């Protein structure tokens, strides 16, 4: 398409690199997202059930987890990226490329998602929990059959928000050697002033966010009665 070559001269000359950047961003999202989902869900549940008045009230566990989450949430991501480099090397074998940035992404977004899950579960009516206990449910059953099931819609919304904020983190991670769209936009769009690359990156990200948002809202609605 000759028109595109005129309109987006720099991008069209670097198409393969652009596709790879898109792929890298997706890869970072999927890998770190999956890990964050599992850990965040577990921590969110632990916070909910161990907090004062919870069904498995446990002050020490709640206090420790609560403080750790606050600690990691208060560290700016760009600092976390460099601070966790040794850990990243120890676990993943490298501190660069997609592999090297999974660890800081997980540490950066899990606390956020845990809090999101905690507040999603907090919306569960206390009466439902009480009713389930009165019917002979064990605390574990209450977690799976009441908390998770009944707050499916808010949890889906929490996932949506986390995926979107994770996209912001992957762009930042790109700047320190992870690759991906953030890195692509900064290297060409910013450093070499190739304005068309900046714009296309923005459009791709906006589209991605919109799709995630739309899908999340669709699923959340489907699970609300």
């Amino acid at each position, binding site marked *: 398409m000759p028109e595109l070559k005129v309109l987006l001269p720099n991008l069209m000359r670097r198409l393969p690199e652009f596709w790879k950047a898109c792929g890298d961003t997706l890869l970072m999202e999927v890998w770190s997202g999956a890990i964050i989902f599992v850990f965040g869900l577990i921590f969110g549940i632990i916070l909910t059930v161990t907090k004062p008045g919870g069904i498995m009230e446990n002050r020490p566990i709640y206090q420790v987890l609560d403080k750790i989450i606050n600690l990691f949430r208060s560290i700016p991501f760009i600092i976390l990226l460099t601070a966790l480099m040794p850990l990243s090397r120890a676990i993943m074998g490298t501190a660069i490329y997609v592999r090297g940035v999974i660890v800081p992404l997980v540490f950066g977004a899990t606390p956020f998602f845990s809090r999101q899950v905690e507040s999603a579960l907090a919306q569960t*009516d206390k*009466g*439902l929990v*009480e*009713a*389930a*206990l*009165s*019917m*002979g*449910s*064990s605390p574990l059953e209450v977690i799976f*059959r*009441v908390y998770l*099931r*009944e707050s*499916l819609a808010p949890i889906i919304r929490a996932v949506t928000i986390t995926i979107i904020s994770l996209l912001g983190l992957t762009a930042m991670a790109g700047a320190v050697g992870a690759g991906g769209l953030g890195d692509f936009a900064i290297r060409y769009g910013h450093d070499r002033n190739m304005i068309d690359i900046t714009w296309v990156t923005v459009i791709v990200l906006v589209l991605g966010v919109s799709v995630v948002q739309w899908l999340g809202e669709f699923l959340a609605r489907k*699970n*609300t*009665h």
Partner: protein
Amino acid sequence: MIELEHVVKNFHADKNNSIHAVNDVSLKINDGEIFGIIGFSGAGKSTLVRCINLLERPDSGSVKIDGVEMMNLKPRELYKARTKIGMIFQQFNLMPSRTVLQNVAYPLKNMTREQVREKVRELLALVDIPDKENAYPSELSGGQKQRVAIARALANDPNILLCDEATSALDPQTTGAILQLLKDLNKKLGITIVVITHEMEVVKNICRKAAVMHQGKIIETGDVFTIFSDPQHQITRNFVRTTSNLSKIETLINDNSPMVKLKPGELMARLVYIHADVSEPLISYASRAFDVEINIILADVEIVAGAMVGGTVVIFNGPRENINRAIEYYKSKNIRVEIIKDAGTPE
């Protein structure tokens, strides 16, 4: 049989403040009984009923159900024991993401899909909403929601049903229908029902025995009829008064209504039936036998626990000795006579 002995439950608001929600309560509820626990809000009745299925674990005391000490059960045993104690709530507490069928099926375990479906249908027929199994709770009225909640509470064929203000969020007509359902279930299934309420109407309607709770203690307990006809404690009297028209006479007197103006020689009294048998024509008999006019100002007689409760407010007119003889006669017939106002003997 439910036996509570010296049950104590405190809540700690902060380090220095603790609230005695349940303060040394002992109670015995027999099998097949409909037992009412009545009290103003904050009296501790909701906490007390949760001490029965240990949703609240008492700080001390003993909770025995059919002779088994609940406080000594291991967690697994406790969960199992709870399946035999149904509970319904003021806010129904149905799971909004589940259909009626799924809600009622929640406590059912170790059954095939078909068995579950059959059991749920049976239960929904029992509570008289057979056509709602695929509806979501948000599509139901309050009365229907409570019926689903009752079906769910009965899913494991419990021996006991605890009702925590189960009708307080419902309108009077629906309340009546739900109470009737509870009465029918008690008869049909022989299930023991414990009713927590702040409404005397509810107790009057379905309970045979009741306890009055105030500030964490049980201040009066016994037959509902006795509690109604002869309340011992001031709090109980207040409760009874909320359902009786006879107390309106005080308002009339305070308002100086012409209805309650006495002529000289007249005497106004409240006649309250204490004994369960008031089939005799007490007013007309006394009027003829002692030659006094007896004018009925207010009357309120109700059926409580299958017997009549209530009385009348009357004005006696006639020679004072005749009036006194009529009053003596009433007292001999087990009627409590309270003089409200006396215009004195005419000069």
